[in-house]
C-alpha cells in the first residue's frame, strides 16, 4: 500500500469529519472509557440496554481519524445487537485489522461499513486506534476487560 486513500477510505474520512452518535448519554445504563497511552487518544462510550439488546449507543472523545471513525461506525453497527452478537462482531473485526482472518470470505461476514478498516492491518501501530472504542464498549458491557497495553513514552 502506498496510496493514503487505501487506508483513509472516504467512509472513514466522512465519519472522522462528522462522527455519528457523538454525544453524551445522561440516561445511559452503562459507560466506559478507553485510553491509549501510546498516543493519548481517549474516548468514552455510553450505552443503553433494553433487556439484552443495545437500544442506544454513543461516544465522545479525542483521537485520530482511525479511532474516531471506528468509534462512529461501531455505534452504527452495534445498535440493536445483544452483547453476544457484539462480542462476535468484535472478534471478527479484530481478526481483520490484525490480519489474522482467513481472507475475503471471512470479511464478507462483517458489515461492509466495518470492512473499510481492512487497510489498518498494514499499520500495526494503528490497530489500537481501530479497536479502542470496541474495547471500551466491551468493558461497558461488563466483559472483555483486558490487561492494559504497553505503556506510552
Amino acid at each position, binding site marked *: 500500500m502506498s496510496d*493514503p486513500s487505501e487506508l483513509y477510505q472516504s467512509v472513514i474520512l466522512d465519519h*472522522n469529519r462528522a462522527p455519528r452518535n457523538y454525544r453524551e448519554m445522561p440516561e445511559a445504563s452503562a459507560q466506559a472509557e478507553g485510553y491509549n497511552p501510546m498516543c493519548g487518544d481517549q474516548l468514552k462510550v455510553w450505552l443503553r440496554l433494553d433487556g439484552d439488546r443495545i437500544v442506544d449507543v454513543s461516544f465522545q472523545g479525542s483521537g485520530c481519524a482511525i479511532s474516531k471513525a471506528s468509534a462512529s461506525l461501531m455505534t452504527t453497527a452495534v445498535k440493536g445487537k445483544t452483547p453476544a452478537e457484539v462480542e462476535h462482531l468484535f472478534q471478527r473485526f479484530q481478526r481483520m485489522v490484525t490480519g489474522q482472518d482467513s481472507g475475503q470470505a471471512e470479511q464478507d461476514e462483517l458489515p461492509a461499513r466495518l470492512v473499510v478498516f481492512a487497510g489498518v492491518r498494514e499499520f500495526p501501530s494503528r490497530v489500537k486506534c481501530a479497536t479502542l472504542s470496541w474495547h471500551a464498549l466491551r468493558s461497558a458491557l461488563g466483559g472483555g476487560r483486558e490487561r492494559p497495553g504497553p505503556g506510552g*513514552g
Partner: protein
Amino acid sequence: MAPTLMATGNAAGSDLARLRRDFPILRQSVHGHPLVYLDNAATSQKPRQVVQAEADFSVLENANVHRGVHSLSQRATSRYDGARERVRAFVNAGHCDEIVLTAGTTAGINLIAQSYGGSVLRQGDEILLTEMEHHSNIVPWQLIAGRTGARIRVLPVTDRGELDLSRLPELLSTRTRIVAVTHVSNVLGTVNPILEIAALARAAGAVTVVDGAQAVPHFPVDVQTLGADFYVASGHKMYGPTGIGFLYGRRELLEAMPPWQGGGGMIQRVSFEETSYAPVPARFEAGTPPIAQAVGLAAAIDYLSALDWAQLRGHEDGLVAQAAERIAEIPGYRLIGTAPTRVGALSFVLEGVHPHDVGTVLDLRGIAVRASHHCAQPLMRRFGITGTVRASFAMYNTLDDVDALVAGLREVRQVFGG
C-alpha cells in the same frame, strides 16, 4: 577525517553525499519512496564506523572488564576505560572518575534521583523541574519525592516555548535541593540557558541536573563552563548504540553518594556482615557493563569530533529554518515553540488533522516523523494540545528531505481537506 558539511547542501554531488554514504540505512525505500528519516530526536542512525567498531570488538576482543588477568580481558578493559576517557573529553569533564557509563539518559537520571536524591532529600525539601521536561526527567523525581516527602515544583514555559526565567527566583527557595532541567527540549527544540539556571540554583544552595540527551548531538557541551553538577545523555541519540549513555557528576558529589544498584564490579570487600564499596565511578557500575556498546559510543564520539561543530550546527539550523519557512505555507499549520534559540526539532500541528494521521500519510511517502505527545504530556497540556508532529533533523539530512516533507504535508492536506 569525516567529510565536511555544506550549510545549504543538497544530497547530490556534495560533501553531504559523501557523509550520507557512512549511513547505509538511509539508502532504502519505504512504501516505494526513498526513506526520509526525520525522527532523529527519537534515535539517530549509526554511521558504519560505529557499527564496525562494535562488531570488531565483539568479533576480536570480547571479554569481561576489570576481572581477568588474561590478555583479552585486559584489552576489553582498556577499550572500556578508553570509552570513558572519550566521554570525559567530549563533555570536558575534569577527570575520568566523574564519568559513569550508564544504560542511557533515563538510567542516569534514575541513578541521580535514587542515590543523590535519596540521601539528601528530607520531608518538605523541594525539587524544581520545568514544564518542558521529558517524562524521564519527571517520573524518577516523583518516585524519590514520594519516598522522602520532598515536594515537586515546576518552572513554567512561556507561549514561545521558553522557560519563564522571571519565575525562577521565586521558585528557588531555601528548601530547593535539586533543579532538574533539560538542555534542549525534545519537543520544541528550545535551547535552555543552563549557565544562568545553574548559577542561580547554586546561589540558592541547590544542585543542577541537566538532561543533555537532545543537546550533545547538536553542539559541543562543556560541563565545567556550564556549571552543571550532573549532566546525562544517551549514546543512541548521538549516532551511537542503544543501551549505553553517560552521567557526568562533580567528583565530590559522586564520592559522597551511596551506591544505587549492588552487584559485582562495584565493591571493595564483601562479607555477609559488611560490604565496602569501590570508589567512583565503579561504585555506580554494578554488573557487567555494556562493553561493546561503550566501544560503539567511543566511535560515535570520534566520528562527531572529526566534524566541524559550527558547520554541523549551521547545516542543521539551515534545514530547520527552511522547513519551518516552507511548512508555514500549508493551511492550518501552527508551529509549537517559537523560541529564537532552537536546535534539531520542529514541532507542529495541522488544524483538523490528528498528528497520528499526519504521521501515517507521511510514512506512506517514506517519511519518518514522530507523531505523539513525545513523552512530554505536561508540555502538551501547556499548549492545549494532545500531541504534535515532530520533524527532527540530523547531520545527514538534506534539503531534499525538507522538500519531501513539505510535499508530504501537502498530500495530508489533500487527503483530509482544509
